[in-house]
């Protein structure tokens, strides 16, 4: 199957949160006790059983308030930091571009949680596995729309082939720019290009997401430099041990030691050796 894309046109989002409910319904995720964070927002992070939620940003301009909406979920990166950080090769990519966690391999170490630029995956402590949005890969593989897209009433969410969606996003951006000069596309320029692409009406920071998300430097240092170097160091030490034992055997040091132990005085080289 070709690469897919999910386009999130935040200019059309009304914050009804039907996407969040549809996600829970399809993926059989139990409801959670929430609390009011701002006037309408009740969640501000993904959890092991909440894979998508909407954040409400109240912007005041000329004495008037306007809403900016942002649907959060896994971005399904082209170059996922979580996949690189995974200790158990449990995170893999589907050909459609989706990043998935194999629960048979996941050990719940939480390395993906700490290394995701958006903090998306979360470890479920009851099953000791990391969980996050699957992009409804089971629906997509069977020709259905992702649950959130299927339920979206305003047309803020659309799904299709990557190229088609890219074109649609660019066309929509040109339209929106007339009224919102700061409008921009968010997702195609970092992390190897994400599968979820946003049309934002303002800068990413206004929505509380990083403008230039990237894999942490510490992750590159860890996986690309320290691990290979550490392997070489341990390997070299192992080689010296083997070499040392061989050299000692060849020099007859072991048999000399055995003679010493048996109480036969050894020939001294003047230094007692």
């Amino acid at each position: 199957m070709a690469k897919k894309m999910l386009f999130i046109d935040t200019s059309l989002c009304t914050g009804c949160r039907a996407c969040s409910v549809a996600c829970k319904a399809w993926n059989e995720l139990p409801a959670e006790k929430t609390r009011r964070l701002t006037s309408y927002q009740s969640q501000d992070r993904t959890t092991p059983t909440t894979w998508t939620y909407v954040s409400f940003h109240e912007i005041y301009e000329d004495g008037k308030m306007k809403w900016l909406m942002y649907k959060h979920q896994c971005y399904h990166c082209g170059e996922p930091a979580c996949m690189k950080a995974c200790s158990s090769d449990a995170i893999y990519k589907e050909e459609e571009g989706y990043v998935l966690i194999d629960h048979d391999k996941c050990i719940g170490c939480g390395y993906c949680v700490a290394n995701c630029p958006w903090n998306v995956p979360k470890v479920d402590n009851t099953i000791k596995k990391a969980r996050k949005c699957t992009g409804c890969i089971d629906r997509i593989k069977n020709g259905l729309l992702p649950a959130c897209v299927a339920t979206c009433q305003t047309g803020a969410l659309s799904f299709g082939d990557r190229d088609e969606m890219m074109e649609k996003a660019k066309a929509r951006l040109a339209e929106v720019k007339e009224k919102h000069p700061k409008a921009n596309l968010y997702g195609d320029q970092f992390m190897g290009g994400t599968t979820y692409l946003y049309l934002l009406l303002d800068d990413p920071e206004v929505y509380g997401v990083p403008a230039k998300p990237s894999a942490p430097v510490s992750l590159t240092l860890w996986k690309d430099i320290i691990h290979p170097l550490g392997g070489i160091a341990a390997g070299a030490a192992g080689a010296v041990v083997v070499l040392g034992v061989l050299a000692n055997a060849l020099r007859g040091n072991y048999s000399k030691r055995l003679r010493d132990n048996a109480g036969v005085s050894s020939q001294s080289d003047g230094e007692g050796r």
Partner: protein
Amino acid sequence: MDPKVDKKEVYRFSLMERIAHGTHGIAFVVLLFTGLAMILTSFQPAMKILGGINVTRDIHHIGGAVAVAIVVVGFVLEPKFRGWITYSLKFNKNDFEHIKGFPVELLGGHSPYPPQGRFNGGEKMNILLMFVSCVVIAITGFIIWFPAVFPQWLVQWSYPAHSGFALLLAAVFLMHFYLGVLHPDSNRALKGVITGWVSAKFAREHYQQWYDEVAEKEPERIREVK
């Protein structure tokens, strides 16, 4: 050289020192192997012996906490064990001279070096590497254990620090095991960390300065063996 030295032994390590060294060693091996299981996927099937990866991780976490506690207690109770570190920090020219000849010694030859103190240059290096790395590993390990409590950047940097120093220590440990157990000359030291006594001949060869000092000031620490 005193011909009788062949038949003598010198008391090198106190009981507390031996216990602290031994528990640290056991903890190190347990933590290294249970830690490797969480980083090398090829290692994970082997962890079925312990009861699966979750048990392995619990052993790693609790074992780490216990190891830190033991070493700290050893530090508080036994000034001589503290002395391992403080003495090793006094690194001087003699120690460098000893390390210079090290590769030859390692391969079973002999390269002359100036008389060494209680710990020789190579041992000082081993102790210092161990100490610095263990402090880093213990702190970062705690951060990785409870990531929710710490800022994200600190958790992120703890990963390379924790596994980097652990891998360095794996190399150091291999050398230490080789010299202490496999090397036909230097493994005479093994008796010292088990019973406390080492052969006087060995002590003179490897720590002449220390041996002479003991012989002069605390002759009761030297005994004859039949």
